């Protein structure tokens, strides 16, 4: 047997062996545990009370994401050389993606120059927000840990975009932006007329026109829910697979069994979903902006 084969058999054996050991030592019966409430993992506790501007963990994450976005990009921009190193090459690739693929691919060139800062900042901000959501930071002030005598909040995974308000605000800005561009180009009545596909006339207009207006509002809802539900569902699956299910059901063998799925989902979310959702949000914003000024 080759070496790789032996290592794989050893890992499988260890996995199943620990599973059987835990089942034998701690029993396979499940005891319902009502002390752990999963929704508390996503609860926002106000640390500094300022009314509607109170500072909680989501505000801290938003602040960190904004500061990181601005400072990393400005830092790299200030250190550009004629012969780029790896970091500069990567940032140039991302810039080209934002400018050529996302903005210029979906809007006329004059408009692309004007809206590129918005679309680019949208992509980078959502990307950073999603990514730092997978970094464990001490933000869970409901369960404090004692490290060297200091009571600090325990480490937890939380993404600012896992709360519906953040994607909602970003989608609202995009919604107002593309409607404003459409009304500016066509005039208010002309914009409503441009929603209706070409070649439609007569009584079927009474069916098509309301549907088109509703579908424009659905763009706002779909942008919000797509980003929010992707990130929230990812975090909840990580929570349940990496031990939440075992805690709720009180079975230690279940925790060991579901742990590899938790790790796999974590890597999947970190590697693919975070970037993809930022790309999709920015691309759809650019498509809606370009579509609002286009003449059918």
């Amino acid at each position: 047997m080759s070496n790789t084969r032996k290592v794989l058999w050893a890992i499988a054996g260890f996995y199943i062996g620990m599973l059987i050991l835990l089942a034998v030592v701690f029993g396979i019966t499940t005891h319902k545990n009502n002390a752990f409430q999963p929704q508390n993992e996503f609860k926002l506790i106000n640390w500094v009370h300022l009314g509607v501007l109170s500072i909680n963990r989501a505000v801290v994450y938003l602040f960190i994401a904004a500061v990181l976005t601005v400072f990393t990009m400005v830092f790299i921009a200030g250190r550009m050389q004629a012969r780029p190193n790896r970091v500069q090459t990567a940032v140039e690739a991302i810039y080209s993606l934002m400018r050529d693929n996302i903005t210029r691919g979906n809007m006329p060139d004059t408009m692309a120059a004007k809206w590129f800062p918005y679309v680019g900042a949208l992509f980078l901000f959502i990307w950073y927000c999603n990514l730092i959501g997978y970094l464990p930071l001490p933000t869970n002030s409901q369960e404090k840990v004692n490290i060297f005598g200091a009571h600090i909040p325990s480490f937890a995974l939380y993404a600012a975009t896992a709360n519906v308000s953040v994607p909602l605000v970003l989608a609202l800005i995009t919604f107002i932006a593309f409607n404003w561009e459409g009304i500016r180009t066509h005039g208010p009545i002309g914009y409503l007329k441009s929603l209706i596909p070409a070649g439609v006339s007569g009584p079927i207009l009474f069916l098509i026109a309301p549907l088109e207006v509703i579908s424009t509002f659905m763009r706002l809802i779909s942008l919000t829910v797509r980003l929010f539900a992707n990130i929230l569902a990812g975090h909840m699956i990580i929570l349940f697979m990496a031990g939440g299910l075992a805690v709720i059901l009180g079975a230690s063998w279940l925790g060991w069994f579901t742990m590899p799925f938790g790790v796999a989902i974590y890597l999947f979310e970190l590697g693919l979903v975070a970037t993809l959702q930022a790309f999709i949000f920015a691309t759809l914003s650019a498509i809606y902006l370009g579509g609002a000024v286009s003449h059918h």
Partner: protein
Amino acid sequence: MLAPIFHIAAGVSAGLGIGIGGGLGAVGAGVGIGIIFGKVIESVTRQPEMRDEITSIQWLGFALTEACFFYGLVAGLLSYVLK
């Protein structure tokens, strides 16, 4: 006298809501994503030099289709919360 039956019915229907929302949503999303990646495989086989362009459209289509699953899931969760 009928109150416990209403209680049980509310609990059952809340669970059913999430199950149907997530399950049917997954059906649609699975079919759609399968079609997208199947078409990508076909088209890259026919024209390998177009691979990068097609890959960028592939990710766009994948995320839009995946979103439909999340609409179903959110609808199910709404039914659970609103009972």
